């Protein structure tokens, strides 16, 4: 499990999972922001 300590090729593993995590976490957050903005536009009866 030497990838944990960033030795050898560990840094590549960290970067790969890091970039993916950011890309995957960003999307629901952006969607929720967009939904909130769209709801604010919609006047409630």
């Amino acid at each position, binding site marked *: 499990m030497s990838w944990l300590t960033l030795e050898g*090729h560990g840094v*590549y593993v960290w970067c790969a999972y890091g970039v993916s995590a950011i890309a*995957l976490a960003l*999307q*629901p957050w952006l969607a929720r922001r967009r939904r909130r903005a769209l709801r604010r536009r919609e006047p*409630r009866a």
Partner: protein
Amino acid sequence: MRSRLFRFAAPSRFYRLAERLEPWLWAAALAFAAAGLVMGLLVAPADAVQGESSRILFIHVPAAWMSMLVYLAMAGWAAVGWWLNARMASMLARALAPTGAAFTFIALVTGALWGRPTWGTWWVWDARLTSELILLFLYVGFIALAGAVEERRRADAACALLAVLGLVNIPVIYFSVRWWNTLHQGASITLSAAPKMAHTMLAGLLLMTLAMWSYAVAMALSRARCEVLEHEAGARWLKA
């Protein structure tokens, strides 16, 4: 029977269904991902030749599979929406596009990060990588066209046609490692023979694939709800 089939073609019913399904799908995605990551990063052995960088497999391969699957779903729903004049289906297709593009991006980036330590290069213009890059451009084109056409019916038709035109690329990506001598490794998992990897690795891979699939559906439903809010603005059921 036919009315049951088209029950969720109504944006209002789809919106409520999506709202109810999403939390479960997010939970499933997180659960599968947790199990898959434990399996892949902690339990499964590292590759004998590649060492620890083979751990990238568990994010790269599911993302690549999903990038192709989501394109098929997107083209399918776009075609359904155009053929049956069902705008909810076209909205779902538009919701799938950014998700697919993100998976393609992740596949390309994690692939490059895996290629650097194992092949010695970030990128190579072989058949599989090039066709996956083209897939990213196809997604971008779809999103661009959807944004450029203001009239909804024309946008739905145009996007459906474009998606169908690009369908040819998917078999090219999938079979590229069989048709050409590429640097990218060949298929380790086929339908006809036993998989050529350790069982724990296979389990981790399948769990991560299920996680990505749940994520993709949840994300598509989430974006579809945004599309509904944007394009059905002013509808009475929204004001309720």
